[in-house]
């Protein structure tokens, strides 16, 4: 265990407090079902166990040397940004176009400079997904707001 664990434990305790507070907002159980175990019972039981274990984690980490960890690189943060933005992009540009963009953005973010290969991946990946999933398995992906607007016009 490292000193780092004290902070992790405290963060978990905060999470438990929030989760417990959320359980106080659960609706009332209808009278005819009141003989059952209340809906708050199990979540609160689990929250209490996590809180107890987190206290142990906090206590075990106190007084220990902090763990030396390297800072995350720019590449890492770029990757996080690309992944996090795919959900938003997919609703605007559509899934297939978004995956094509990911196929360009991720290799470039990771330092790949063989642009012809990147281009091949960017074209082949969405096309293969369309052929296999949409045509083969009837999985229809969102076309996105922009394509929707274009189709309306």
């Amino acid at each position, binding site marked *: *265990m490292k000193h*780092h*664990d004290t902070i*992790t434990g405290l963060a*978990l305790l905060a999470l438990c407090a929030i*989760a417990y507070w*959320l*359980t106080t907002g*659960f*609706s009332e*159980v*209808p009278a005819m*079902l009141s*003989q*059952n*175990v209340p*809906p708050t*019972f*199990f*979540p609160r039981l*689990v*929250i209490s166990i*996590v809180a107890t*274990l*987190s206290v*142990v*984690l906090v206590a*075990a980490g106190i007084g220990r040397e902090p763990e030396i*960890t390297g800072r*995350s*690189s720019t*590449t*890492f943060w770029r*990757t*996080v940004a690309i*992944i*996090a933005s*795919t*959900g938003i992009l*997919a*609703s605007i540009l559509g*899934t297939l176009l978004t*995956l094509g963009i*990911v*196929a360009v953005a*991720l*290799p470039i973010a*990771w*330092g*790949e400079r063989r642009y012809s*290969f990147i281009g091949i*991946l960017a074209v082949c*990946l969405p096309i293969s*997904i369309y052929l296999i*999933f949409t045509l083969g*398995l009837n*999985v*229809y*992906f*969102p076309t996105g707001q922009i394509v929707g607007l274009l189709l309306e016009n």
Partner: protein
Amino acid sequence: MDLSLEYALPVLTDPIVIGLIVAGTVMGVVIGALPGLSSSMGVALLLPFSLYLEPIPAIALLSALYCAGTFGGSITAILINAPGAPPAVATAFDGYPMATKGEAGRALGIAAVSSASGGILSVLVLLFAAPLLAQVAYSFGPPEYFALGVFALSMLASISGEAPLKNLIGGCLGLLIATVGIDLTTGVERFTFGVPELYEGIQFIPVLIGLFAVTELLNQAQELGRERIAVTVSALKLPSLDDFRRVKNTILRSSCIGIFVGVLPAEGSTMAAMVGYNEAKRWSKTPDDFGKGAIEGVAGPEAANNAATGGAMVPTLALGIPGSATAAVILGGLQVQGLRPGPYLFEEQPGLLYGIFFAMLLANILFLFIGLLGAKVFSRISLVPRTFLWPTVFALCFVGAYGLNQSMVDVWIMIISGLVGFVLKKNGFGPAPIIMGVVLGGLVETSLAQSMIIFDQQWTGFLSRPITLSLLVLAVISLIGGKIRSVLRRLLSRTNRTA
């Protein structure tokens, strides 16, 4: 359970099942050989697509991938000292030194034969032990299932010796995730935040894709630039008969260890491999050679990690309690297919056990040949640039998460799970305990609620049933056993020093 051939033949002669097993084996070896991709992740990625198949072919495909993926990890462990999957970590200890001495073919051959032997032995155990365990489980009621769930979760404390506390917290976080949605007994919404897509709970597949694959993608982003030195397989020199004679006892011993560790809930191939390696070293006549290229050091972990695959399927199928992280994913697959893992599974799907048995058996035989003849080809898989591999994996994650319900909410759940999983991993929390908690959540909560009604809301009721009591005692032992052992060891060494 009826073991008659009446149910076996349709499965064993179905060309679709055979084709899928072959495909699953090849995919498994490829996935296992790719550094960063494990059999758990492979099964997680393939699971959404397997739902387009009938239950038996789907589970056969996943089971074949599970076995072959566990073996595949040894290829890169031996050739480039980068285990393709965690169960192959111990294989690299002696496999890579062998490869640097120009004995890569010998190491790969020993790995293939040991893996196949361990795997075949374990599926034989699976065929007979699973129905027997299911017979026992017929008498289980909600209190027994609750105690079994608690026991399985308590075993998380011993998955990794370094972080038992964090594994337990991870398992509980998984249980908490499983409470999201409408409570089935009262109809009350829990943690849904008014999002209609969450009324039925957080879908299992996007969570596991996020935790396994997206988390690993982020991990890879941090590890870019680390160089790996590849060893070429100049000549595929197979192990000699003398080599096999030397390792036959190691294979047998490690296979038994692997099966035993695999049967234990939550323990998986990684732990089996570590125990298999340590025992191979302990029994060896030349323990000093370990770490320098001892063939027993390759045979031990490889036989154990593949034997654990069949072992892990025993509690998964017979009790609905996963024996490993990958088995948890397969269990989730059974549930999503609408099947009820547990004793009644074999009655409802009489061909299923044969499907899994046949898939695992054939996969073990197939990868033996692949390992012996195709090692040179598969070793090239590790040369696929990560810059092209991971965008493709992410596209599969996206499609896999979206495809099940065709809902973007599931994609968001996958992305959030991946980001949270990465933060947790950086703080020492692995994805496997969380997945275990998510899978067991429904069973534990439902059986607890039913038990409390049976016992008239009295906790002491659990102590009145022998099986329940035994399982709860075992749970306590597995929770505090490690601590007691280390205290005793400290006391013993102090006594020895004073003496």
